[in-house]
């Protein structure tokens, strides 16, 4: 098990390093880095001074070494707009996104397992059709459009929910509902497929022959064995939830890392953009590790 975890950790560490290297060289090799970091209206002298100050005239490899050193010591520069360390700004926003993601993924996982299992139990039944309709919607409807329509209907016309911002629990409902749709549509299909396989296996037939009722058969016997592919997909979906978070946070004015990233891009605050990318990449790296651990714990073939 340890060697499996180690192997996976090294593989995802390579990905992480790959991203850092890519971001660095992209930002230094394409055009003028001073122009990237400074506001558009900066003068030529300001740019020269900036280059001198941050060693942008040094050889590329020297710069890269310094950049890696900075990243390892947690020094990601200052936010140009907020005059605070970029890392602090990002971490503050990241907590919001983390909560949003945790709540959404918990709801999605629970709902997808229940609906997917019931859909597999009666193929063609109500839950099967419900799950396939939601899956189709999730793959076809732009999430930002859903968000906008939801605001018009529930906030503007009905006045039930706030349009944007944070403050009360009510503020969380719309963002979570919008984020819910796509991962639910994907995970529920995987649960369904995996459960259909598990339900037709010999041990389920044995259980049924012994007279075990449907409920325990689905949720005790079959589900445990059907969970493996589901766990992998949950991990993938949790990572791509960030795609949705960028959009949902921007629309609902939610102070998470997705909104921060878009705002910093529009305000040309490059240090914050870089810090946000690194922090999210690190979070995804840690989550992949957790997923692998869960996988190893669930599957005895990997444990031994």
């Amino acid at each position, binding site marked *: 098990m340890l060697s499996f975890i180690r192997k996976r950790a090294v593989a995802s560490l390579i990905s992480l390093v790959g991203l850092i290297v890519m971001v660095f060289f992209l930002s230094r090799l394409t055009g003028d880095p001073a122009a990237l970091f400074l506001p558009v209206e900066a003068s030529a002298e300001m740019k020269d001074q900036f280059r001198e100050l941050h060693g942008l005239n040094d050889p590329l490899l020297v710069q890269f070494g310094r950049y890696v050193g900075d990243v390892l010591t947690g020094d990601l520069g200052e936010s140009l707009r907020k005059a605070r360390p970029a890392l602090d700004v990002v971490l503050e926003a990241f907590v919001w996104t983390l909560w949003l993601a945790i709540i959404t993924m918990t709801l999605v996982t629970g709902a997808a397992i229940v609906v997917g299992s019931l859909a597999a139990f009666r193929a063609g039944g109500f839950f099967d059709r419900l799950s396939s309709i939601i899956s189709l919607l999730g*793959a076809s409807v*732009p999430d930002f*459009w859903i968000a906008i329509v939801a605001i018009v209907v529930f906030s503007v016309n009905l006045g039930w929910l706030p349009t944007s911002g944070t403050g009360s629990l009510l503020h969380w409902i719309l963002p979570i509902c919008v984020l819910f749709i796509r991962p639910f549509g994907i995970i529920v299909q995987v649960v369904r497929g995996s459960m259909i396989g598990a339900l037709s296996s010999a041990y389920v037939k044995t259980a049924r022959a012994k007279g075990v009722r449907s409920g325990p058969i689905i949720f005790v016997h079959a589900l445990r064995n059907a969970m493996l592919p589901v766990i992998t997909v949950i991990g993938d979906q949790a990572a791509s939830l*960030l795609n949705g978070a960028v959009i949902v946070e921007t629309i609902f004015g939610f102070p998470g890392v997705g909104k921060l990233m878009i705002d910093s891009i529009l305000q040309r605050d490059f240090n914050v953009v870089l810090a946000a990318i690194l922090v999210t990449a690190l979070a995804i790296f840690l989550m992949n590790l957790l997923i692998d651990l869960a996988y190893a714990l669930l599957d005895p073939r990997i444990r031994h």
Partner: protein
Amino acid sequence: MTQQTTDAVLVEEPHFARRMLRMLLADKFALCAAIFLLVILVLAIIGPSWLGDLATKQNLRGRNAAPFDWERGWVWWMGADALGRPLLARIVVASQNTLLVAAGAVALSAVVGTLLGLVAGFSSPRVNQVIMRLADVIMSFPSLLIAVIVLYILGSSILNLVLVLAITRIPVYLRTTRAEVLEIRERMFVQAARVMGASSRRILFRHMLPVVLPTLTTLATLDFAYVMLAESALSFLGIGIQPPEITWGLMISQGRQYLTNAWWLSFWPGLAIILTTLSLNLLSNWLRIALDPVQRWRLEMKGRKNG
């Protein structure tokens, strides 16, 4: 030798195109989807030269004109935007950019991904490892994140948008192709070809690619919808297509500030996106069955019963 025997065997088989058409008629959803996509495609090709002037002509007296006003010309039936430009005409014109970006990204990622996948599946373990690790790097981070940073550094233009979207989708084709190649290359017909002295390139392109192609076609159809949504999202966020160019995603974003008094500004382009992606998803579902020799009978039996 091959020509005559295959002719003799396949004498009962109808032509490929006719067969596909028959199977399309058997699935009503897929038929509607295909017709809708065809209409959109034609509009995307002729739209800008046909309605281009009308779609950019401002008419400040008709700002945010309401939809369903049957007395005016048909281009006004969906209402007008904040500068009094007819929405229907703008949607038709915007379809070109929307489809162009998606088609470019899908074509590029499919070709590059498939080639890399063929190479990865067929060459030495070391090359295989390098290619797969590269795919892992791309796959392990949310595509929007990569697109955001690259577009920020390179600047947003249609070409960059196509490139970025293509890069984030390459691993999908790469992994599928490689997985299939790894399985196919152990099969008898590949070994037979090798024993008969066929070159690696010939085996890859003449023997293996045709087996992988149906899966890839289905995947590409599905991916077209995904890429369209991604482009819309980027344009909506303001880092994709820039005005005065228009796409459906950008139209939704432009209508956002008038949501409370003119919902139709964002609603119609959104509907256009939904109908197109829905059609693509339905068509992809149909393709998966129609191109699979094992499942094809479902459609063929149905067609015969109805016809």
